């Protein structure tokens, strides 16, 4: 949008320029024509005046000639002496008018030629009149009158009249031609002026319309620009990273909200300041200044300049600085955008992630060690036990008859102890394997699972009367083999410790608690003293003597370990001789992913 609008108006501008120039030329032509035509009209008016003057002077000449003749005739014929006084002035008049004509007609050759003929005729005529007067004075009146009657004067005056008539006619004809030309010129001028006025009116209208349209367009453009600016500013303010816009001198033109929040600065102490002055000179970094100058002058952006600084109230922070040139419409100098990113937390997270990885590595090594340990336990410790048992047995076979009862009992104790130790080792290995084995999570129907375990255990009750009270159990998520082992241990214990009861009553319940399901197994057996409850889930911890109830004391330790791996808890309640209740919980919903990996080796 920003690019197409100027292009369009540039095209329009060119067109309107051409039109404008054409109109100006047109108007100038019109005005020129009007000027020229007006001048011609003025010239015509002047020539009318000229013609009139010429005619006037010609009339004067004629009248003067006629007056001279009339004066001479009056003197000659009637003796009127006073008439002679008129002769001199009239001759003067004729001479003056002829001079005037000489001036008036100097640019018309035809009339001038006639004038040159006229002037001698007038002179001749006047000279003739003077001759008559001289003859009259010297030779008598009759001689004067005789000369008068020779008609020479008559002929001269006729010639003069004819010439003047011709000249007047010529002037009249000229006047007519000029008047006609002036008329047509003034008509054309009128038309041109009318058309010109119309054009000017039209142009003015067009100009007014254009200006108004231009104003509207500018207003619209200003609105669009304001919108774009608001849009850009809202983006800049929304960005979480601190941003600075710097001008050519690296003076802050703008900073976004994040900048003010991060550096706890105010616009007053930031805007229009040099970057190097900000924050007590903390930005005065030669390397940064160089990079910013390069970004501005060479249009070379930079990324990820690492910068450590002390931020008041937040301690030492590491930031990445990036900059690039900004192009702004109407500002060729440009500006540079400086973006800042605080990577302190990210670095810290990376560091702690490295630490976690190292710890994991260590755990894996420990686990491998443990594996090697239990392997050698299972192989190397069992072999000597087997030998003890084997050779004790062979000794009994070999020398049994030589031994008394005491000796045979000793041998038996050796064999029993070896076997018991074998069992302990096996249990210990089982316990270790429980903790290390991969968990395979799936949906487990606890209801079906307990039914199955009860059926299995029922075969070992040896005809005892056992009452199973079983509530319906939920489907949970977990490792079926481990959960099965949990129930084998718990229900096996319940059976074992309720052996003295007839009937033994074993109950299985499930209750919902916030975020978890709690399952309990209750028996009416011998129970235990709650004072020792804390020992119950320990490895090889027993609350009964082994001659009362067999076992190594690994069962509940295994239960706790397996439930812990499912993200659950285990606890117990009991009263001596009134039975025990063992509780365990399983998280409702999906298991925490952390429990899918073997936990750290524990001693409990």
């Amino acid at each position, binding site marked *: 949008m920003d690019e197409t609008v100027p292009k369009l108006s540039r095209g329009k501008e060119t067109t309107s320029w051409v039109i404008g120039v054409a109109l100006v030329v047109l108007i100038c032509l019109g005005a020129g024509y009007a000027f020229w035509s007006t001048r011609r009209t003025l010239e015509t008016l002047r020539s009318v005046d000229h013609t009139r003057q010429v005619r006037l002077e010609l009339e004067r000449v004629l009248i003067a000639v006629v007056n001279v003749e009339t004066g001479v005739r009056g003197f000659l014929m009637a003796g009127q002496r006073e008439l002679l006084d008129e002769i001199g002035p009239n001759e003067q008049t004729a001479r003056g008018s002829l001079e005037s004509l000489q001036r008036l007609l100097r640019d018309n050759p035809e009339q001038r030629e006639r004038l040159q003929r006229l002037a001698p005729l007038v002179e001749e005529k006047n000279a003739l009149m003077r001759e008559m007067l001289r003859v009259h004075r010297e030779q008598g009146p009759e001689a004067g009158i005789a000369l008068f009657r020779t008609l020479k004067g008559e002929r001269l005056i006729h010639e003069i009249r004819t010439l003047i008539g011709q000249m007047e006619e010529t002037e009249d004809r000229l006047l007519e031609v000029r008047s006609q030309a002036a008329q047509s010129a003034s008509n054309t001028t009128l038309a041109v002026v009318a058309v010109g006025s119309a054009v000017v009116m039209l142009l003015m209208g067009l100009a007014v319309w254009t200006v108004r349209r231009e104003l509207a367009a500018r207003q619209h453009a200003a609105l669009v620009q304001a919108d774009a600016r608001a849009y850009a500013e809202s983006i800049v303010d929304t960005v979480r990273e601190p941003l600075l816009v710097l001008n050519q001198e690296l003076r802050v033109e703008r900073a976004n909200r994040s900048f003010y929040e991060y550096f706890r600065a105010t616009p007053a102490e930031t805007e229009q300041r040099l970057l190097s002055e900000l924050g007590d000179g903390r930005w005065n970094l030669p390397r940064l200044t160089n990079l910013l100058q390069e970004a501005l002058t060479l249009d070379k952006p930079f990324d990820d300049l690492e910068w450590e600084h002390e931020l008041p109230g937040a301690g030492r922070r590491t930031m990445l600085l990036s900059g690039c040139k900004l192009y702004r419409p109407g500002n060729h100098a440009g500006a540079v955008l400086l973006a800042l990113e605080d990577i302190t937390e990210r670095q810290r997270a990376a560091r702690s992630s490295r630490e976690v990885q190292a710890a994991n590595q260590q755990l894996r090594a420990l686990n491998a060690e443990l594996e090697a340990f239990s392997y050698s336990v299972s192989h190397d410790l*069992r072999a000597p036990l*087997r030998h003890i048992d*084997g050779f004790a047995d062979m000794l009994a076979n070999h020398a049994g008859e030589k031994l008394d009862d005491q000796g045979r009992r000793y041998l038996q104790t050796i064999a029993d102890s070896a076997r018991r130790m074998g069992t302990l080792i096996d249990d210990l*290995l089982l316990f270790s394997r429980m903790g290390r084995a991969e968990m395979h999570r799936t949906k487990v129907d606890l209801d079906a699972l307990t039914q199955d375990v009860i059926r299995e255990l029922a075969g070992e009750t040896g005809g005892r009367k056992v009452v199973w009270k079983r509530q319906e159990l939920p489907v949970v998520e977990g490792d079926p083999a481990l959960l099965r082992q949990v129930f084998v241990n718990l229900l096996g214990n319940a059976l074992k410790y309720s052996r003295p009861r007839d009937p033994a009553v074993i109950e299985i319940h499930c209750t919902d608690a916030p975020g978890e399901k709690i399952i309990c197994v209750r028996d009416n057996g011998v129970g235990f003293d709650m004072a020792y409850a804390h020992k119950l889930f320990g490895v090889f911890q027993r609350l009964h003597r082994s001659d009362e109830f067999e076992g190594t004391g690994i069962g509940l330790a295994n239960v706790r370990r397996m439930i812990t791996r499912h993200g659950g808890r285990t606890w117990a309640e009991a009263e001596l001789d009134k039975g025990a209740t063992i509780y365990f919980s399983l998280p409702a919903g999906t298991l925490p992913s952390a429990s899918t990996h073997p936990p750290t080796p524990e001693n409990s």
Partner: protein
Amino acid sequence: MTASVKKILLVEDSEHDIELTIAALDGHHLANQVDVARDGAEALDYLYRRGAFAGRPNGFPIVVLLDLKMPRMDGLEVLRQMKSDPELKSIPVVMLTSSREEQDLVKSYDLGVNAYVVKPVNFKEFVDSVKQLGCFWALINEPPPPPAAQT
């Protein structure tokens, strides 16, 4: 060579275990058929009739009872070499070991073991196991035909 007595090869590093095993087999009069190798390397020497066993009569044992953990070469390596040799791979191999570690079981079966028996700590159970083993492999099981007959 088919006339020669059927031999059981016991590969075991522990003197006590050798004695106990032979005592157990004695009950079925199989004891005199037992040849003993004290580690994996010796077992291969026996099978290939080389080294200390260069002079032994021709023919393969009807079964190899193989301990897992031994000095020099362990039982899994012996098993691997036997099962990758076309001549030896048809000899039945029984792992007779203290280890009931899952990884040992898996590896042994992967390598093609014919049976896997955990030595019980209890001597009577041990004797039972070994007797049954001896009976089964020496008396009941029909061994593969010797290589000569195969070709």
